């Protein structure tokens, strides 16, 4: 059976060769290596472009829906370009969602936790990267292993604890923990970065009379700006999008974050997709802008931490 097919295949090739004129052998007709490479690149670009269109359709559709009237949304065949664009939808979304209040809450939580995360994770990372003490390496292994811990295991007792402290329905449960280490990933990322800074800097600073804190504050922090920025960007992204934390802890409407308000808006305004699309775009625009301005840091950070992307 197998033999048969091989023979057949061989026959086919010979017939094909016979059928084709000897063009291939003529030097003028041979496709050059360079040309072949260009064709290959052309195919790659074509596939990438098709994929990019598929990726971008949802975003384009979101923008166009946000600028349409309800009858236009329901039209078939669809109107691809909203005309006239209803910029008023954005005004309506801002007022009906109380966007500015929730933006203020989200910004407050994001900024305060940002300070906590950057300060405490860099302090801890400095301890692990630069100082020697018995048991420190073991503790660093513990830091790494907590990355694997699913947050659900600590969720309920933590909720009960904050309840006992009377912190439920305040921002405190969302903010205070950020000052205690700032997350295993960030500690890991910063420690790795600190280790790449030559120890000679520390020695020089010590000779000039710097103590441990001085080395951290005046030498390592300024030299680690890119790594700190990466940590900051990922934290902003995470905090901005966080949903479960606010959902569990923030009960009264005037304390909600954008995520929470948007979800509530979604449940109430299912019949107004244009306003919903406008408000979810308003919520994501700051992140998209941040991404465009700090693209390099983003991709670097994903590569270092590997996971958060």
């Amino acid at each position, binding site marked *: 059976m197998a033999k048969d097919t091989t023979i057949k295949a061989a026959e086919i090739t010979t017939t094909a060769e016979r059928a084709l004129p000897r063009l291939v052998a003529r030097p003028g007709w041979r496709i050059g290596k360079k040309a072949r490479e260009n064709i290959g690149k052309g195919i790659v670009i074509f596939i990438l472009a098709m994929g990019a269109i598929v*990726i971008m359709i949802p975003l384009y559709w979101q923008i166009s829906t946000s600028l349409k009237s309800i009858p236009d949304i329901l039209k078939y065949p669809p109107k691809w370009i909203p005309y006239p664009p209803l910029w008023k939808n954005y005004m309506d979304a801002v007022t009906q969602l109380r966007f500015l209040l929730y933006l203020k809450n989200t910004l407050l939580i994001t900024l305060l936790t940002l300070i906590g995360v950057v300060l405490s994770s860099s302090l*801890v990372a400095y301890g692990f990267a630069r100082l020697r003490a018995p048991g420190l390496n073991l503790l660093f292994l513990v830091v790494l292993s907590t990355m694997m811990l699913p947050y659900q295991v600590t969720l309920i007792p933590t909720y009960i604890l904050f309840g006992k402290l009377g912190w439920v329905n305040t921002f405190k449960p969302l903010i205070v923990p950020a000052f205690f280490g700032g997350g295993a990933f960030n500690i890991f990322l910063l420690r790795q970065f600190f280790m790449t800074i030559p120890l000679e800097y520390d020695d020089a600073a010590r000779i000039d009379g710097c103590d441990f804190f001085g080395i951290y504050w005046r030498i390592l922090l300024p030299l680690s700006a890119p790594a700190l920025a990466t940590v900051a960007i990922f934290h902003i992204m995470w905090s901005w999008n966080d949903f479960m934390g606010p959902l569990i802890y923030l009960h009264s409407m005037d304390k909600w974050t954008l*995520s929470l308000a948007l979800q509530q808006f979604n449940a109430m305004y299912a019949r107004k997709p244009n306003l919903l699309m406008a408000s979810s775009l308003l919520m994501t625009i700051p992140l998209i802008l941040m991404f465009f301005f700090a*693209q390099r840091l983003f991709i670097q950070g994903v590569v270092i931490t590997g*996971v958060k*992307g």
Partner: protein
Amino acid sequence: MISRSPFMGMSRARRREALFAYLFISPWLLGFIIWEVGPMIASLVLSLTKYNITSPPIFVGLANYKRAFTEDPLFWHSLKVTATYAAFAIPLGLILGFTVALLLNFDIPGVSIWRTVYYLPSVISGVAVAILWQFIFQPQFGILNTLLKMMGLKGPEWLYSTTWVLPAFIIMSLWGIGGGMVIYLAGLQGIPTALYESAQIDGANWWQQLWKITLPMMTPTIFFNLVMGLIGTFQIFTSAYVMTQGGPMYASLFYNLYLYNNAFVFFEMGYASMLAWALLAIILILTLLTIKSSAAWVYYEGELRRR
């Protein structure tokens, strides 16, 4: 006894350094005790109780575990939903993310623009993305069914159909392949070019280079993404909560959503704690299995000498 202390025999400077080391890591150490170790023990204890927050917990032994394994069909169902989703979303995401990374690794013009486009969806996540996809899957005027209609096909009810709700979640997950793609891209760029050069001298074509060099060299990265994908699937919450609330007919009741419902909707804190510990056990077992199996297919450069 004191003479056994590692601090004895250290110079004054070293002792001072050790003291400062602990001082610097103390924020983490405190947080670790307050928000990791303490709650972990507490939730293990709570998993043995019936507790609704308002009245004190009642010790019930292993009743919660027994209930989950023998009496609660939703426990098994939510595991099945999560596993089914994982069985499709993880391999598909892996193949697509890897393919895009391979394509982006060619020397083509505008690489950074392509990279941006493919990574962009990973920047926006959470509620906004869930709302967007909820409308993409809207059966009457959503873009997906509109496009299908233009091709002469009648699209399914997606989020309103018990059959199509999980495929919808899987399709949505593929929109975010950019995160994995960047990691693969970094891995690809870490492969020494000398390997390819010598293969080309031996006359290996692109396909052979892919199978004999690229894939073996990429197995550690693939392994890493696989483990993280497994853990991530069990954390799915926001999209399910926003888009379907687990419906229709529990068809998208992801494990994490079921846990949340038990804790914060039914206030069954004891049962929910048990679910959390069961989750920890599942993740540990899956991770260990993946690590065990990795010996067969993950290639580390250090092994070269042993072969």
